[in-house]
């Protein structure tokens, strides 16, 4: 008897809730940022990419940095859901949905921002009419689409038992949402046969998503590494990108964990123990990323090849030095130091470390794209002066901020509609512990 009361309590705790005033303000702010971005994009469509400050040398700017950033973040879905699941990590279960929501939001805006970067987006269909398989862009289109659908399914299948629970509370969710829930999952009866089928499907997807996740970010790194340019011409790039991606993804999950926990009072479900364990994962990923960074920069620094010297000096001690050392310190070194201490893995310090990792990672992506383009093989000559520098225009900032806001909006909407923590899994776990 007490057991079922406890079960009802869990359901009540975890059901999605309507936005209160603060939630509405949050959504309002995000929508406002998106609208400013939409206006900036309208200007870009009308006048062309000339409204950006990209020019012939820096022909890729913060749009591409943002693209790499989003693809990187989206990898966390595969880490928390698939890697943890296949490795039999039980404690990760309450975090899987957060990770999948972040993955879906990020991968959507990775696709959006890459279209924003196109000079002639109205010809997007040419990719399908005339696509050439030897171009890494086509590889990216194929794997990102695949990854998007696998991520969506990995969000959807584990939701089915929860939707059954949600359908029991029609009066609470209102007629519109209830209709949506029945559309999504009214076929789910929770029978043993369905349960086995779902488990099999989820396992298959978990196996499938890992190579696809590795591929999307490796191919993204190859957009750079298949060129000759100093700073991009590196065999280390695929692994370096993957390591960085898992790090920023895990960092973003930590940030989201903290926000959801405080906002929705989920202290019972996302415990300090979760933070401690995520902290250990994070410090491992930081160390791994540090290792790849050493590989990426130390050997070229040792040799100082003529073609790379300008680029390397600019990073280490030149005009990008401040950003470079900020990204390394904030994004890797300081998190390692903080996380090695047990008290550093408590919820609040973890939240701060998570933000540091994510912010550092964004600047790292900026440094991957821009400095290389400002150090071409041929001298920057016979071009207008402004071609020799790059600082994004307000339109670029507005659109980039809007893409970040848009990702958060998707996550916000998803957590308004669906339980942030899988209800059925929590119930099952609860029953097991009671037994």
């Amino acid at each position, binding site marked *: 008897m007490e057991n079922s009361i406890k079960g009802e309590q869990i359901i009540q705790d975890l059901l999605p809730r309507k936005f209160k005033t603060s939630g509405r303000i949050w959504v309002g702010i995000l929508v406002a940022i998106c609208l400013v971005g939409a206006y900036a994009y309208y200007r870009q469509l009308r*006048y*062309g*990419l*000339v409204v*950006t400050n*990209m*020019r*012939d*040398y820096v*022909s*890729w700017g913060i749009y591409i940095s943002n693209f790499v950033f989003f693809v990187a973040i989206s990898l966390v879905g595969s880490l928390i859901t698939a890697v943890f699941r296949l490795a039999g990590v039980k404690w990760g279960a309450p975090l899987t949905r957060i990770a999948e929501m972040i993955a879906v939001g990020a991968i959507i805006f990775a696709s959006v921002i890459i279209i924003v*970067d*196109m*000079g*002639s*987006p109205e*010809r*997007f269909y*040419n*990719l399908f*009419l*005339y*696509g*050439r398989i*030897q*171009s*890494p*862009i*086509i590889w990216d*289109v194929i794997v990102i689409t695949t990854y998007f659908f696998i991520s969506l399914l990995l969000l959807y299948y584990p939701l089915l038992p929860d939707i059954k629970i949600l359908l029991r509370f029609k009066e609470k969710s209102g007629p519109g949402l209830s209709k949506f829930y029945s559309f999504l999952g009214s076929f789910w009866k929770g029978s043993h046969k369905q349960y086995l089928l779902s488990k099999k499907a989820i396992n298959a997807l978990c196996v499938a998503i890992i190579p696809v996740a590795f591929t999307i970010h490796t191919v993204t790194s190859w*957009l*750079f590494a*298949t*060129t*000759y*340019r100093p700073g991009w011409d590196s065999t280390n790039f695929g692994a370096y990108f993957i390591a960085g991606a898992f790090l920023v993804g895990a960092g973003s999950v930590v940030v989201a964990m903290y926000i959801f926990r405080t906002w929705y009072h989920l202290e019972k479900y996302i415990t300090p123990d979760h933070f401690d364990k995520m902290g250990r994962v994070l410090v491992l990923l930081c160390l791994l990323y540090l290792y790849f960074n050493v590989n990426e920069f130390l050997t070229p620094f040792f040799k100082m090849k003529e073609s790379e010297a300008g680029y390397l000096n600019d990073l280490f001690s030149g005009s990008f030095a401040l950003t470079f050392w900020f990204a390394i310190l904030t994004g890797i070194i300081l998190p390692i130091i903080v996380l090695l201490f047990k008290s550093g893995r408590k919820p609040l310090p973890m939240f701060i470390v998570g933000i540091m990792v994510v912010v550092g990672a964004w600047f790292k992506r900026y440094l991957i794209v821009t400095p290389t*383009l400002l150090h*071409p*093989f*041929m*001298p*920057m*000559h*016979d*071009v*207008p002066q402004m*071609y020799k520098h790059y600082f994004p225009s307000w339109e670029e900032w507005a659109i980039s901020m809007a893409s970040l806001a848009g990702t958060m909006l998707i996550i916000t909407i998803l957590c308004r509609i669906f339980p942030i923590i899988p209800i059925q899994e929590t119930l099952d776990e609860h029953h097991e512990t009671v037994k």
Partner: protein
Amino acid sequence: MEPENNSRRDFLLAGLVAAGLATGCNPKKDPFEAGADGVQASGKKVKLLSVDGDVIEVDEAFLKPVPHLPDVSNAEARIGIPGKKFVMVIDLSRCKNLKKCQSACNFAHDLNPGHNWIKVNPMKGADHTAPYWEPTTCMHCDEPPCVKVCPVDATFKRQDGIVLIDSDRCIGCRFCMAACPYSTRVFNWGEPDLPASVASQPYSAETSIPQKKGTVGKCDFCADMTRMGMLPHCVSACPNGTFFYGDLNEDSVTNGADTFRFSDLIKDKAGYRLMEDLGTKPSVYYLPPAGRNFPFESGLENDKTQNS
């Protein structure tokens, strides 16, 4: 395809005959028929020379100037001229940064200011080596990195060695610009400022006209001039004869005044290509700036206009 082709041919013939040029076209429909295009005969006749060498008379009212259009479809432009392999040789000892090549190129392709397909760079090998002026065009590589990465086949390599761009297909992803180690590609960030008569022309990959917003442009080795058996604009514009152009299969290159056997020229003057180590196999060769015609300093004044 057929009807459209005919009308275009007829249109072209009218223009070419008007200009007094001879072409091999044989129209199925007579464009000079009274009432064609709603033009009324004026009664005043003009004498013209026909394809076969006969003097013919045409009513003046039917003569109208047409913009220069190449007589090739984009499908033909993708194939190139069979049996040819075009190469360029740039003699660095002859260059004094007059930039006549650049202005002729910009004029011929209706390029906007700042969009230089030809750049003339002041180069210096090392601290104690002598500086020299180095004009750069598209290298028309035999292993073109830009063509490899293009996702939609908008930039392509022809059988005569020329690398061109189909601006009607380019999606503006700029991967080719990142891939090109010679930084030769130029992007149309905004709407190009062009006269209406140029902007309304159908795009031709051989003339690279008109340039379009959101697409990439670059040196096209003047494929249209080449098809007519003429030299690229930069070659004929250089008063110092810096640029040589020709066909590798014929083993001859010319700057208009002098013609050399390509293999001898490269052998005698120790010709080389830029960034050979990358394996891009450029079609543009350079002759080292030995025994120069001009001191380096004579080009400095000209460099100030764009690079101060």
